[in-house]
């Protein structure tokens, strides 16, 4: 299921869309290897989120837990959120100094559509970790942060 894609002209406004994502995140996603939640329960505009990805099996990331920050501005979901790794990682689409996921190197952000969700981004990043050009890259020490 993709949130907000009615296949028709009905547009779920930003805040109600984020409330849907919040509830979905609270229920838990799939096998639990990706998850997300809101940072500040008092922020009525629901801007700051933390995502977590458990490194995929049979890669250098296996057994590691990666924390990310997602920032949904007022123009979300017309525009994608700003996505930044908090946990240090070496990966083709991630700026090695800031941890920012660079949109032009990461398809889902480069070709963003309104129906895409934070869940989609995290799942896609997990797949990206297991891609041939990422799965064997030497990684920074575990538990270090940007």
């Amino acid at each position, binding site marked *: 299921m993709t949130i907000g894609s009615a296949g*028709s*002209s009905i*547009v*779920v*406004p930003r*805040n*109600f869309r984020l*409330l849907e994502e919040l509830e979905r995140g609270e229920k838990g996603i799939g096998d639990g290897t990706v998850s997300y939640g809101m940072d500040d*329960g008092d922020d*009525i505009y629901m801007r700051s989120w933390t995502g977590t990805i458990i490194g995929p099996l049979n890669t250098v990331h296996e057994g590691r837990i990666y924390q990310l920050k997602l920032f949904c501005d007022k123009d979300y979901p017309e525009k994608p959120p700003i996505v930044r790794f908090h946990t240090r990682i070496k990966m083709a689409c991630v700026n090695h100094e800031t941890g920012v996921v660079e949109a032009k190197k990461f398809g889902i952000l480069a070709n963003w559509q309104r129906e895409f969700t934070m869940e989609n981004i995290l799942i896609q990043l997990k797949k990206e970790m297991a891609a041939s050009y990422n799965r064997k890259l030497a990684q920074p020490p575990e538990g270090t942060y940007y």
Partner: protein
Amino acid sequence: MANSNLPRRIIKETQRLLSEPAPGISASPSEENMRYFNVMILGPTQSPYEGGVFKLELFLPEEYPMAAPKVRFLTKIYHPNIDKLGRICLDILKDKWSPALQIRTVLLSIQALLSAPNPDDPLSENIAKHWKSNEAEAVETGVFLITAKEWTRLYASGV
């Protein structure tokens, strides 16, 4: 165009909301999205929300009227059935929804909820506790009333 296939029922409801607004309630659709309403509810007299102007947002999902409208407060409010994100715990927005209800009835119910909180079905345990203790003591000085009035002054003064 986002609004071209708007069901007749929604058009009718909108027209009536605009031409005959319920006392203390205003609701108008946004220009870009006719299913998305900016709502204002005045705090009912003789409630701790009196004098407050509360902003809400309302969205009619695709399934409306088979499914309830989605509504939440944008103005911070101290109330046992409204959480920090402005989400409202009200039976007609959930399992007691019926297609015979309308946007107007939903907003009137929310206005009534401000006058008569339902502490047995709280979203906020803390606030409900304060409300109950206040009801038991039946004194103006209860923690609930003081805080609810204070928040109304701070966040809902309408300026």
